[in-house]
């Protein structure tokens, strides 16, 4: 019996040190993500080009951190999910930031595969879990009502329509998923409320006849020229 426990001691020491290695990298990732998110938040009151450069500046270090995680996991094939909890939340936040950035840039939705490509990830070794990606999208949705409110205050009256269309499309697409009664399902329900708030802002703008009138400060903040109107 003692022999077996001695072997277990050795084994658990080893897995313990792998866990510790990953935990340290994930902790760096966590504080880094917060910086990146903080750099994006001024989008609520600043111009996109300013914010874009700052956030993109973080990208290469971010890729580096994920590369470190991937490097450890590479030696332990099949154990991505053993330690997944260590980077689950951080990854969802990364998806949120990248998806928001992408939408500000192009008006489109960043796909799962594109996210992995942005981070230089090889899904066969270390990818992004699909649920983490979807939850990241839900966080992105949560941010949009506030964004729309601030854009309208700044005089950009086209924003609500664009966001309403985008968010409506996102919600419709999400509805094709067969969700179980889990965490993802609860977050998905949140998208409905986000859409509702955006539509309320759209209504406010529309009934005041602001939609087709001149937008006062939109060109000054430079947002309009950056968001491609990809629908209609």
């Amino acid at each position, binding site marked *: *019996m*003692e022999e*077996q*426990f001695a072997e*277990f*001691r050795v*084994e*658990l*020491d080893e*897995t*313990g*040190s792998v*866990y510790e290695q990953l935990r340290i990298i994930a902790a760096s990732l966590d504080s880094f993500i917060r910086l990146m998110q903080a750099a994006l938040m001024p989008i609520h009151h600043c111009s996109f080009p300013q914010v874009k450069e700052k956030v993109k500046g973080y990208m290469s270090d971010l890729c580096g951190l994920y590369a470190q995680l991937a490097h450890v996991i590479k030696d332990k*094939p*099949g*154990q*991505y*999910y*053993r330690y*997944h909890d260590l980077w689950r939340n951080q990854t969802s936040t990364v998806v949120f930031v990248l998806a928001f950035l992408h939408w500000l840039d192009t008006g489109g*939705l960043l*796909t*799962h595969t594109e996210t992995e490509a942005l981070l230089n990830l090889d899904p066969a070794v270390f990818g992004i879990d*699909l*649920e983490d990606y*979807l939850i990241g999208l839900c966080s992105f949705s949560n941010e949009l009502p506030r964004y729309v409110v601030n854009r309208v205050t700044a005089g950009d009256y086209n924003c609500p329509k664009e966001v*309403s*269309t985008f968010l*409506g*499309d*996102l*919600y*419709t*697409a*999400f*509805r*094709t*998923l*067969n*969700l*179980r009664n889990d965490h993802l399902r609860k977050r998905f*329900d949140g998208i*409905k409320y986000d*859409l*509702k708030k955006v*539509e*309320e802002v*759209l*209504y406010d703008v529309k009934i005041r006849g602001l939609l087709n009138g001149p937008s006062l400060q939109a060109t000054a903040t430079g947002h309009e020229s950056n968001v491609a109107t*990809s*629908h209609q």
Partner: protein
Amino acid sequence: MEEQLFGTSLRITTGNNNNNNNSGTVSKRESVYCQQFQQYAHQLDAVNEKRERIVKASRDVTTSSKKVIFQIHRINRANRGAALQQAERDLHAVQSIHVRRVAQELKANETWKYKRAFSPGMQEFVEAATTLEFCKTGKLLTLQQLNASLSHLKDVSDAPFSISTGDYLLGVADLTGELMRLAISGVAAGQREVAIAVCGFVQALYKGFSQLPNTVDIRGMPKKMDLMLQSLIKIENTCYAVHVRGLEYPEDMIVNALEHEEIDSDQEA
């Protein structure tokens, strides 16, 4: 596909997801992202359905393993040989039917993804297997031996299925609870030596467990260690009672006293 009607301000139409759901105009435009999300839906469906199958198989492993353990508790001097053989056969059935169902769902790289779905079943199976082994030989069935008996169960990539160290340790922790019951019923049946053998065995187990580092990876280990210590204390108290009072009283009185003590201490706890 589920849908919830959400207040009147949103006017979402149920069912057909071709309807656009904003600002009053019901255009028949499909969301541009639907195609992409169809892919995601397929992936999620595959994962969820597999997980459900594994959970069902794991539950069956649990129930059938528990039955084996109940049978072992019913062993007495009269039926020992036959009962052990029956338990052996039943354990083998658990393995070849239900554990096999779990094994067949797993690809080489997916064991950890679905771990939580089948872990409880594996722990119960380990508990049953180690209890039976102790009854037969008085020894601890090692993980290596257990996995050797499972090596004929193949997963999707044809690799042999094996039980993880974590599940094995948690199952062995549960074993101590069963051994405690065996010790007490052994005394009731007039076999004091069972209690003494169990005591030494569990003391060695507890020592082994206490020296394990870094069990942060294994969910629920601290609590199991607590329970293990409680079981060990009960076993030691049983041996004490047998030793001290055995000099004066017959077995059934001792067992009655022990059972009363158990009830008392459970009420205090």
